[in-house]
């Protein structure tokens, strides 16, 4: 009985929310009004819904209440997670064994395609490059900057903010920004800074984003530009939390600053380094926007996430798209395992 109610309540929750959304979809109202209603539903409606459900639980016999109420609180979240993450993830794996429209089983054909098509193979090679180079460079530069900024007597937070700022903008925005660096004109004055410099030192201008394979590195620079601030902020916090007397003891023993950094600071911030590296790896594996808008996947710059949207969205091939998504997921599984392990270790301490 409890179970039935526990399941029925969250489903009723979804039905109500979907009904409101459906109503808004069909209503031809002023846009401003739609947004207003949207915000009201978001803030008020969802909250009132929880309140109503809580009151319904009050109608039950007291001994049932304590067993049902937790599901009212946690149920909607579980339903949303099931419908929008768990079910789709499982479904994607199934779809990856089907044809473009998802109707016929094709066995491993999509995976055979993924591992033989030349553009796909290039995307795997490039993604490997991205997920090694970007995290390493961003972490090293972030670490160096954190150490340097830590020694400033003033303006430390201003300097850090400026490095961190690119994190607030979109990948598309960042791509536009870097267009003014990489731009190439076949005729007339150069408008890209890099080519401006080339001309200034008497060289021929270069179409940077068509230079295989170096264009990949240039695209990675954009991602590094965006992620370094993140690495810097986390590492800076870790560095500041290294106990001062530990460093002092090292100095008294006559260790040089470099030795102290290598033997004391780096081991102390190891867990922060792992977090930064894994996080930037995940972000890098998923980035497609930069490639999508700057080279459109041409000139040998394909990456896995870009291939996904290309096959699924542009070529309308659900099967191949799903296989590419599964490939991306396989790359992330090790990090998922690390996260769950770390979480369980934390729970032990709690």
């Amino acid at each position, binding site marked *: 009985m409890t179970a039935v109610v526990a399941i029925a309540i969250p489903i009723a929750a979804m039905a109500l929310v*979907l009904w409101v*959304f459906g109503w808004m979809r069909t209503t031809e109202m002023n846009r401003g009004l739609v947004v207003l209603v949207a*915000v009201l539903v*978001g803030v008020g409606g*969802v909250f009132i819904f*929880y309140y109503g459900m*809580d009151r319904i639980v009050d109608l039950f016999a007291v001994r049932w209440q304590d067993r049902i*109420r*937790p599901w009212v*609180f*946690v149920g909607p979240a579980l339903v949303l*997670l099931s*419908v*929008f*993450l*768990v079910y*789709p*993830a499982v479904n*994607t794996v199934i779809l990856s064994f089907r044809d473009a429209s998802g109707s016929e089983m094709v066995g491993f054909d999509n995976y055979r395609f993924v591992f033989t098509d030349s553009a796909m193979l290039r995307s795997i090679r490039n993604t490997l490059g991205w997920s090694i180079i970007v995290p390493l460079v961003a972490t090293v530069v972030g670490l160096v900057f954190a150490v*340097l900024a830590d*020694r400033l*007597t*003033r303006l430390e937070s201003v300097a850090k903010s*400026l*490095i961190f*700022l*690119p*994190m*607030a903008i*979109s990948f*598309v*925005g960042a791509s*536009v*920004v870097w267009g003014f*660096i990489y731009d190439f004109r076949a005729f007339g*004055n*150069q*408008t*890209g*800074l890099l080519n*401006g410099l080339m001309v200034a030192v008497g060289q021929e201008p270069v179409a940077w984003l068509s230079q295989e394979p170096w264009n990949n590195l240039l695209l990675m620079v954009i991602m590094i530009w965006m992620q370094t601030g*993140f690495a810097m*902020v*986390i590492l800076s*916090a870790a560095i500041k939390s290294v106990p001062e007397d530990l460093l002092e003891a090292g100095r008294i023993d006559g260790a040089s600053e470099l030795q102290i950094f290598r033997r004391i600071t780096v081991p102390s911030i190891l867990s922060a380094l792992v*977090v930064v590296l894994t996080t930037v790896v995940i972000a890098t594996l*998923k980035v497609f926007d930069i490639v*999508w808008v700057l080279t*459109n996947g041409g000139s040998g710059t394909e990456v896995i*996430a870009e291939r996904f*949207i290309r096959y*699924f*969205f542009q070529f309308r091939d659900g099967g191949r798209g799903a296989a590419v*998504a599964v490939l*991306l*997921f396989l790359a*992330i599984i090790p990090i*998922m395992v690390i*996260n*769950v392990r770390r979480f369980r270790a934390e729970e032990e301490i709690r």
Partner: protein
Amino acid sequence: MSVLQDPPAATAPEPAAPAKPTGAPGTSGIGLLVVRIAVLTIVILWLIPTLGLLVSSFRVRAITETEGWWTFLANPFDTAQWTLQHYRDVLGGRSGFGNAFFNSLAVTIPATVIPITVAAFAAYAFSWMHFKGRQILFIGVVALIVIPLHLALIPILRLYTQGVTLFGVTLIADLNLVGSYPAMWLAHTGFGLPLAIYLLRNYIGSLPSSIIESARVDGATHFQIFTRLVVPLSVPALAAFTILQFLWVWNDLLVALVFLGGTPEVRVLTMALADLLGAFGQNRHILPAAAFVTMVLPMAVFFSLQRYFVRGLTAGAVKG
């Protein structure tokens, strides 16, 4: 993940002078000078690209198209080169950016508020209520954090267009949601929830149990404890996640392309900007100004709420 639980505030006042190791090299004389020059060099390198965009967005079309943006350094006070026309063009009707700005708001606000509400209730249950499978369900949530949303997009699109049929039984009918705001709200809610639940549960779970228990003893219901005690006490965590989710949704291109791609009238800012960047048409001169319009809100959020922003980003580092 302990470094993530208590991230620093970038704008927090610097520790008082005595906290710094006064004897350490690099804090005085030549050493400090070298450090300052190195920091300044990196900061300038990091700012140059944005500077190029900013300058180009204010220069007249004839100049941006024929000269490098850095040439303004030669005569920065020559007012003939500066103009606001590009911003007028962007925000005026025909470019579609005004409309896109509006669409971005309509997508982003509910897609931020809904997940945070749902997650807060779930986080409270995971922290302070007893039910079967609590631990294992929460580990499931933790595992979901890194699931790349690419893995979910295809079936969700099919769900929106075809509904769900299991063994010939229609579980969910055709929702006809593609090209609508709710399609985005629901998808972003699903993608944002695992991290939101995880972060809020860590915060709400670490509130002192004596407060919760004494409220229980006084006869308060869970709902009252949640609304009157836990939510007010959790404002820092709620604010951090709100900003984080706001920026994700605002800056997202992937989800928008998939669910709004075929419907120009609901195009959000990132799509409008990507379209403009891809087009080799006559509107390219407004690109810098358009890019700035898309960045202005996240940057305002960044500068005004930097402390929460940094906390949220550092805490939200693990999202998939």
